[in-house]
Structures are given as C-alpha cells and as structure tokens.
C-alpha cells in the first residue's frame, strides 16, 4: 500500500507530529510496522520476540487518548523496539543468553518505563550478542541476525538486532546499549545514527549489567533528530540509579535544528592522525573518513591535530576492565533465583552445570579473563594497573578537548564482514573496537552517523564518529545534524526494502 510505504520511511519526529495533528493514527502506524516485521524477519532475524498484541493495545490507547483530547507524550504512536538487554515487565527477557531462557521480569526497567510514559509503542525485543559481548551478533544461541544491506554479512554487535531492525524499517527507533561501541559500531555497519550518551546521562536501572562503569543505553535511528528525540525522553536522573547524573537535561532538538542549517563556523574538530596509520584500517573507510572531514571543513569547521598518547593501550585496558566487571556481574547467574537451573545433587555442582550449559563461548572467555585479572596475585598488575591507565586515557581526552570542540574518527576500522569470517579469532574481534572504546573508558558522549559506502560489492555502509566532552550532547548533535543536512547517505535504503516492499504488492 502506498500509505504503508510512506509511513515506514518517516522519521519518529514526523510520525509523532502526525499523530498529534491527526494525519495518522497510532494504530495505522503500528500495523504498517508489524507488516514490515512480517515482510523482513525471515531474512533478517532482528527480533528475539515480537509483541504484536501489546503493541496494538498501546497504539489503541494512544488513539483513544487523542480522541479524548488528552495531552500526548513526545513519542506518542512511534513504534520502537528494545534490545533484549532491557528489562520489560511481563515480556520475556533473555539478554541474548540461554541462561535467562524463560525469564519474565517482575519489574519495568527505567527505559521501558520512560518510553511508555512518552507514548511509544513497543513492537518487541531485539536480538543481541550474549550479555552485550560481541561485535557481530554472532554470539547467540538463536538465529543469526543479517545485515539488511548484505544478508550474508554481519550487522555488527552487540546491538545487531537493533541495527538490523531500524535499517530494515521494521521499527522506527531502536534502543541499544554500548559498553565498548555496541551502539555505534552496528550503526556504522548499517547506515544509521547511533548515539552513546555520556556515562550517567541515562539511567542504567533495568539494563542488564555487563560492565557497570562502562555501560550506557542509547538510541539507534535513521535521522539525527530522532536520536535527539529519544535522548530527550531517556535522559535524566533516576533515584534508583546512583550512577545517574543529577544535572539538567538540555533541549536536544533545539541543538539539532540549529545544526540542520548546515553551518559549523569556527567549530574545531580534533584529529588523532596516528590512529589512521594503524594496520587494519580499511582503505575505503579511510577514503570515506577523509571525504567526511572535507565536508565538515566546507561547512566551516577547522581541523586541529591532537595527540592521544595512550590510544594504543586502550583496547587492552578496556578488555581488562570490562571482563573484570563482567565476571563479577555475571556471578549472579547461578540457577538459584531466576532463569534456567541445571539441577545437580549439590549446590556447587548446580552452579557449575547451570553456568556451563547456560553461557556461550565468548561469555565464558570473558569471565575467565576477568577472573584472572581480579585474582589477588594478579590484581595490582592487571586490574589496578588498568584502572590507572584508564585515568591516563581520560586525561588524554580532557587535554585534547582543551584544543578542540569535538573529536572525529572512523567508527569501525572496517565495513561489515561476512558472517563467520572472524568468529574464530577473538583478539581480531576485540581490535575492531579500537575507535569506539575510548568514549566508554572516559565516559564521553559519542555518535556514529552515515558517511558513505564501500566501493566493492556488496555496497556496505561506513560511519563517521564524533566524540564530545562529557555532557556536551548538544554540541555533538548540532555537528551531526549539520553533516547530515549536507549529505545524502542517510537517505539511502538497503536493497532489502525494495525486495520486501514488492512482496507486499507495492
């Protein structure tokens, strides 16, 4: 149907405005997206669980509220989906793991709550790498997620399902989580906007913990304005998360609208050139990045060289800290109080059997590494040392920001790779986080935006990453909006859309 085609391509901002002024109903938008899920899921497998009846009920409630003249929230009628790391009351949540198979949360997480209060319609839960550990969405006991741009290629991870759904137009806003790049990297691989807010900007309550000092929730969207809209709803202090920041929430949409004029006069963009010379940076990624820099300069920005002296130690530092925190956080999965239990005659054997059968290989790998670095005899040499290096890395960024307003880099050193190509080399997979982990280590906000495609077939997206000082999301969003206004990458649609649109009868 023509109206379905136009609805699924609209931004969340446009849909919300259309619901408010009566141009569309929440129910028709919901049906259009549910039809997209039906049309794409057998090829993409983005969803872990679709909740059509709940979604229809939520949409109906929005339409009834509008008919009564009630005030509508900023996301009223907008179809969204949540990475399965986010706790949803009454809807089974697995966090990508067999160990939580069958677990239905008894409480609503802060993200689901805020989005519901804003009027969003939740279509379902999205597939992910187990416990957030992975860069390709291949660490899953269930169906592999496919990149809508090239179905035999990875969508990125760990928010791979989120990226696949947003780019396949089977949801409008997807919520992901980012510990070492898990929002930004899939966004880069799937031609999307992916935003990781400053640490503490968004509550972590109800986001199943991987590494508590690094994890942040954030949106994946097709337009910068939608990321701003989502952040506006999610940001703010939470009395039940003492790591959430009690600072005012600025007007993110105003920043986007200011940026959309396309001018960046005087903005100083810092460039760490040494990182670009590293082995492993794909030539096409470099080409797109240089072109993106040229576009930013055309818009009035000034490039400034900066140093990040500890950049080459960041991946190692990250993998010591995140695995240490993960080994501690995942100790709670023991088969006793929730999730799966592999019963054995003794408690200790029950723990071991449950965990061994419930966790996948990557999770075990990281638990073992984390256990190693936290052993009493290793602590000072590994974890203690990495915590000091983390301070040095944070200082490097602070020093860089004394000389520039934003930092720019590629998001991922490579575009999407074929499914299975890297799964046997964990270290190679870890090294692909080289550009993204700094923002997590230093608690900085960072965004990935569409910045081109590789020349070789299949045509795969390449993202540009911008980083800002803590709590400078408005600056980040303004620059991202300006770049978006001057380019057309974000308007391209994966070939899958036409392929699945045709099956609908056009």
């Amino acid at each position, binding site marked *: 149907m023509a109206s379905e085609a136009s609805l699924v391509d609209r931004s969340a901002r446009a849909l919300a405005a259309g619901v408010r002024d009566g141009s569309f109903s929440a129910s028709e938008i919901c049906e259009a997206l549910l039809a997209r899920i039906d049309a794409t899921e057998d090829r993409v497998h983005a969803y872990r669980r679709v909740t059509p009846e709940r979604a229809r009920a939520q949409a109906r409630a929005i339409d009834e509220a509008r008919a009564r003249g009630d005030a509508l929230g900023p996301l009223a009628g907008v179809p969204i989906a949540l990475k399965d790391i986010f706790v949803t009351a009454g809807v089974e949540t697995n966090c990508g793991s067999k160990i939580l198979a069958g677990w*239905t949360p008894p409480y609503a997480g802060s993200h689901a709550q805020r989005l519901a209060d804003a009027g969003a319609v939740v279509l379902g839960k999205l597939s992910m790498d187990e416990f957030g550990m992975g860069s390709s969405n291949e660490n899953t006991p269930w169906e592999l997620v496919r990149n809508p741009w090239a179905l035999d290629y990875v969508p990125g991870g760990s928010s791979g399902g989120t990226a696949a759904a947003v780019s396949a137009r089977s949801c409008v806003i997807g919520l992901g989580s980012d510990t070492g790049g898990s929002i930004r990297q899939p966004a880069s691989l799937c031609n999307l906007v992916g935003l990781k807010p400053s640490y*503490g900007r968004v509550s972590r309550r109800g986001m199943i913990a991987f590494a508590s*000092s690094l994890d942040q929730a954030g949106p994946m969207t097709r337009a910068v304005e939608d990321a701003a809209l989502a952040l506006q709803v999610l940001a703010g202090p939470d009395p039940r998360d003492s790591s959430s920041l009690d600072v005012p929430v600025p007007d993110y949409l105003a920043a986007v609208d200011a940026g959309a004029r396309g001018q960046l006069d005087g903005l100083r963009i810092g460039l760490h050139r040494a990182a670009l010379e590293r082995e492993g940076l794909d030539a096409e990624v470099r080409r797109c990045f240089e072109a993106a820099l040229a576009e930013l300069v055309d818009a009035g920005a000034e490039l400034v060289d900066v140093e990040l002296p500890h950049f080459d130690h960041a991946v190692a530092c990250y*993998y010591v800290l995140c695995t240490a925190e993960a080994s501690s956080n995942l100790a709670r999965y023991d088969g006793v109080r929730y999730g799966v239990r592999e019963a054995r005659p*003794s408690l200790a054997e029950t723990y071991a059997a449950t965990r061994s059968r419930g966790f996948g290989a990557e999770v075990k*790998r990281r638990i*073992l590494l984390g256990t190693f670095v936290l052993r009493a005899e290793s602590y000072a040499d590994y974890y203690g040392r990495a915590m000091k*290096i983390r301070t040095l890395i944070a200082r490097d960024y602070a020093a860089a920001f004394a000389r520039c307003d934003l930092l720019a880099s590629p998001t991922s050193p490579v575009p999407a790779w074929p499914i299975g190509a890297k799964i046997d080399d964990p270290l190679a997979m*870890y090294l692909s986080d080289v550009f993204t982990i700094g923002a997590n280590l230093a608690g900085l906000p960072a965004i990935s935006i569409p910045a081109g495609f590789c020349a070789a077939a299949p045509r795969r997206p390449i993202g540009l990453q911008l980083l800002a000082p803590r709590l400078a999301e408005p600056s980040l969003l303004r620059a991202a909006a300006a770049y978006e206004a001057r380019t057309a990458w974000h308007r391209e649609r994966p070939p899958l859309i036409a392929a699945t649109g045709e099956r609908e009868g056009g």
Partner: protein
Amino acid sequence: MPDQARALVDELAQLAQLELADDEADALAGQLDRVLGYIERLRSVDVAGVPEYVQDEQARSGLRDDVPDVDVDADEVLAGVPVRRERLVAVPRFKSDGSEG
C-alpha cells in the same frame, strides 16, 4: 598446548564456577593465552603517581530517605524462581557426600 595455559584455565574455571569439557578447556586455554599476551603491553605504561579512575562528577551519596517503597511484587518475583517450596527458594544441599538423609 602448553600445560601451563591449560592449568590456568582449569584454576580460573573453578574460581568462576564453570565446568568445562576437555576440548572446550583446551580451546579456551589457547585463546586466553593469546589475549593475555596482548594485554601484557599494559606493563610498559608508566603509572607512577597515577590514581585509579573515578568519574569527574562523583555520584550522589546514594542514600535515600528511609521510607518504605514497594516497586516489585513478591509473587511475580517468586514466579521466576526455578524450584520453589511455597514461598521459599529451594536449592540442593550444599555438598553431595553420598549420605543423603
């Protein structure tokens, strides 16, 4: 496969309450060895006088007012428990020593 790497994996698996099959433990030993080799580079960084990392803005004190606040239903929580006896979480005995009572 160096015995040392495999012995390390066995020790860590026990600490982490993981029970690994032989081939699984061998594979993990090799991978862990490679990753630990990579992490050794952290030793070359001069960290003298550098404090461990804390966020710039320290979190709030984290103390809430002492006011009862129920935000989760006990029955719903219990519904998720794998093995229950009435409102208790049932678990196997701590050790299996063959002399079950």
